[in-house]
């Protein structure tokens, strides 16, 4: 199973619908301070089932919804969709029918998140289990957020072992 495409709308500074194609090998993401690179990473963590607003620099989950600029009003809805290529049929059993799997997460201000896999409403737990099988849940070692290297360095030995336990 491969990660193929990320679509973002209304999530943090990506108010306009945006599409990122994820191709084999290495894709560099560049741009000035504050332009939205880490927001892109957080959109991916979020659609994969991130539950901590704090881990996405907010105070509450609604903080991921575009909150406006001096020229635009805020939005009430944010949506991120992740498309996975499943030609090798390696997806978890209940979603292994087709060539593709699409995972969608939507949040509406004060109304919480909804989750869909291939258009079907599912619970947060289903999304987290789906990615846990693929060894790439929202907090797996495979997503190293900005400052995480520093956190490992500064961690007390007990905190650092939390890292090792994700491998077991």
């Amino acid at each position, binding site marked *: 199973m491969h990660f193929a495409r990320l679509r973002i709308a209304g999530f943090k*500074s990506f108010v306009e619908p945006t599409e990122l194609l994820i191709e084999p090998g290495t*894709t560099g993401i560049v741009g000035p301070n504050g*332009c939205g690179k880490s927001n892109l990473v957080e959109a991916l963590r979020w659609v994969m089932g991130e539950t901590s607003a704090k881990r996405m620099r907010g105070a509450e989950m609604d903080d991921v919804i575009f909150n406006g600029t001096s*020229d635009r009003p805020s939005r009430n809805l944010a949506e991120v969709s992740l498309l996975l290529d499943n030609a090798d049929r390696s997806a978890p059993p209940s979603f292994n029918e087709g060539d593709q799997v699409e995972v969608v997460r939507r949040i509406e201000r004060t109304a919480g998140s909804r989750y869909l896999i291939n258009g079907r409403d599912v619970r947060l737990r289903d999304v987290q289990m789906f990615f846990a099988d693929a060894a790439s849940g929202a907090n797996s070692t495979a997503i190293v957020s900005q400052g995480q290297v520093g956190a490992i360095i500064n961690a007390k030995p007990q905190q650092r072992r939390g890292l090792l336990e994700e491998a077991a």
Partner: protein
Amino acid sequence: GRERMLASFEQVNKHFQDLFMTLFGGGRAHLAFVDSEDPLEAGLEVMASPPGKKLQSMSLLSGGEKALAAICLLFAVFLTNPAPICVLDEVDAPLDESNVGRFCDLIQELVSMTSTRFLIITHSSLTMSRMDRLFGVTMAERGVSQLVSVDLARAERLREAS
């Protein structure tokens, strides 16, 4: 439980030692359990000596050496069960040019060893020049992000100009 933890620890430790020697061009390092006899309770310490230097706990190393050692630890865990996607947000920030080059060599090797797709956020012109493709994030309108494809040849000219 305890057996599995120890087996997993051995696996990560092996990868860590190899990666350290690769990224540091020599020297040696290993992981150690501390604070408890019980591997399920103990904390994780990193003992490291860059080439020619004395073995000591990670704390006395330089900022860049610590970052490189932490990168080795992250990839040691990664290698025990490579995920289909690996996202790295500015992990090369504290590294000097020569270490950024070694970091890029390692990524290349991981690409050939696994089928993992890498998304690498960076400010380093050297890292940029070694990516298979580049996307730029811009804010032409203030506070509103847009994704644009960046021509690698143009990025190469930017690199030479900076």
